[in-house]
């Protein structure tokens, strides 16, 4: 069995993907820990590794038809310094891991890892990001919500790679991201919250609300958002308790090593309340 392959370009990577069962590896910051076997030992993989972190095609950030296209292999540290990336996404990325791991970790890895605690996910759900999944013979574009199906589960086919993330061209003049974790800048999140809004003349033209870590997948409700859109901010401020109540039924956190369910729920709703109170 081959132990790994370093393709020269994306085409070669996809050809390898089509011919061999393989595990794509970008930065390796998730995989190397998940497959670790302890001190001084090399991680154990059951399939050959396909190295994709170096592929040029996956490392570009460009604007096409007004939408931002982010290559799956773009590093978290590159997102933070790129002027095409919105302040809202930067805010979330700055709170991820630590500088030395942000110099390794990729946005594509964060998405494909499909953890309900993935810090780029609430933003990507909130802006309706789309993903380009490529194989040698096909290309499909799907909404991120259709890609991640369960914790740690995505709909990537065995011959596909995630190549690009498309962020629709849309301005939000209020953005808010907070995560609650054990230690600043490290350990995975206990609860996270992304709020985005477009407010004009004290009216809510658009609002997006997404919660991480509080359910098997990211929580977002278009229905509740629609009930807020188009209303004056004063009306929304008065309706905060009612809005919190609606979201409370959707937030179903679990107890785990990181936190208790009750704490997660309380904190998440408080973050939402804080965001709504900042609209003006």
């Amino acid at each position, binding site marked *: 069995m081959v132990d790994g392959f370093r393709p020269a370009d994306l085409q070669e990577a996809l050809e390898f993907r089509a011919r061999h069962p393989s595990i794509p590896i970008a930065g390796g910051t998730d995989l190397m820990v998940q497959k670790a076997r302890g001190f001084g030992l090399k991680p154990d993989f059951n399939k050959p590794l396909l190295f994709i972190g170096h592929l040029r095609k996956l490392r570009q950030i460009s604007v096409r038809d007004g939408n931002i296209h982010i290559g799956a292999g773009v590093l978290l540290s590159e997102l933070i310094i790129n002027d095409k990336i919105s302040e809202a996404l930067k805010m979330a990325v700055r709170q991820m891991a630590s500088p030395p791991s942000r110099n390794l970790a990729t946005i594509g890895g964060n998405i494909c890892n499909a953890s309900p605690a993935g810090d780029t996910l609430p933003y990507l759900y909130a802006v309706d990001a789309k993903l380009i999944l490529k194989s040698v013979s096909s290309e499909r574009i799907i909404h991120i919500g259709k890609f991640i199906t369960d914790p740690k589960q995505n709909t990537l086919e065995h011959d596909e790679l995630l190549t690009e993330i498309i962020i629709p061209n849309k301005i939000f003049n209020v953005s808010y991201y907070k995560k609650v974790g054990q230690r600043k*800048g490290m350990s995975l999140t206990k609860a996270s919250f992304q709020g985005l809004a477009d407010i004009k003349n004290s009216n809510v033209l658009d609002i997006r609300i997404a919660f991480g870590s509080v359910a098997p997948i990211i929580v977002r409700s278009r229905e509740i958002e629609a009930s807020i859109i188009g209303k004056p901010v004063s009306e929304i401020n008065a309706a905060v308790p009612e809005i919190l109540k609606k979201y409370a039924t959707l937030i179903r956190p679990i107890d785990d090593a990181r936190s208790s369910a009750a704490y997660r729920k309380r904190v998440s709703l408080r973050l939402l309340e804080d965001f709504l109170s900042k609209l003006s």
Partner: protein
Amino acid sequence: MKIEFVLNDKKQVIQVDPASRLLDILRDDFELTSVKEGCGEGECGACVVLMDDKAVNSCLIPVGNIEGRHIVTMESFRKTERYKVIEESFLEAGSVQCGFCTPGIVMSTESLLRENPKPGDNEIRDALSGNLCRCTGYNMIIKGVKLAATRGKGLW
């Protein structure tokens, strides 16, 4: 897999399983023992080295990813002028006690000062947020980094 890379300014060609951790290759095959294993999970920063001048956790890197890259450890960084300034400043500020975390912290400091030669307190704290130290309580390390930035003006 055959991997070609530059290690401490010297070209190396190795035949390895690409899933091996860079940390183990550096420690076991090249005997570069300044690189420490604290947690093996990216949380402590004891294994931090420079890859193309940027701080990275060597415990998280599969060697398949280092093809064509330049890896620098303390063993060669200590010969530079910049290291001497960091060393002096750390000693003066009391930034080093047991020393286990120090190589990783020096690497993160070098990476920070290359990007930002005049960092403020918060920027230093952020840059070192991936390096744990059980001894100093961090304030002395922050002080050491600041001192190095001032003393080493023009070096970064």
